[in-house]
């Protein structure tokens, strides 16, 4: 099981802040592809160049390997401070 989180504008665009993937194995990039295949409407939002990805609460690249029990997050560029 992999926990997937979405934040801010992306959370609103997708209409959900959290979901679980039962039997996933592959990279972070693969996980994004799998979500877009499952929810075709999400592609336009999730595939944007500026969307950041985190693996276990650290910023990560598409090549990062996702394991069972991991927490993955997608979000737009940050605007704190």
């Amino acid at each position, binding site marked *: 099981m992999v926990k997937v*989180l979405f*934040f*801010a*504008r992306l959370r609103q665009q997708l209409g959900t802040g959290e979901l679980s993937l039962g039997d996933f194995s592959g990279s972070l990039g693969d996980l994004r592809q799998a979500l877009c295949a499952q929810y075709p409407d999400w592609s336009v939002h999730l595939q944007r160049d500026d969307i950041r990805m985190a693996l276990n609460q650290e910023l990560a690249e598409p090549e990062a390997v996702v394991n069972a029990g991991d927490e993955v997050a997608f*979000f737009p*560029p*940050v*605007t*704190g*401070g």
Partner: protein
Amino acid sequence: MPGMKSHFSRRLLAVRGVGMKAVDRIEVCEEPLNVAAEYTALQGNSGDGACALFVGSVRDFNAGSDVCGLALEHYPGMTEKSLQRITRDARDRWSLGRVTIVHRVGPMQINDEIVFVGVTSPHRQAAFAACQYIMDRLKTEAPFWKREAVADQTGSAAERWVEARDSDAAELEKWSAG
């Protein structure tokens, strides 16, 4: 394992006893910031001669619109980790005493303080530089997102997510050269 725990506590006290000044305070809170209290706690026991502060507040105007209010969303867990990493990296670069980062989340109003960053050091150069470095990193990597309430042309309120600025990324680049 009560024996191990007390051993650990004694070690922690010993470490703090030797380096009383090297204390980090990192907090994400929904309550209004108390800048005076944060400064007192930061500088009061540091023993350092220099203290640099940055306080960021909610603006009443942004991107061509009057702003009526602001809400901040964050990624609990990752936010704290991110601020801890930034603080650790600042300590690797400069000799610092105390470091405080307090960031507010949730709904807030114009002029409310959003973020407090304070750094003490024996020398002002390190305090100034570290304070700026922490803010530059926070702006580009700590997972916070601002949502503004703005008045539209008819005077009714609308909401919009604040866009990230390229200039913030440019500010960060100067630290990689050093």
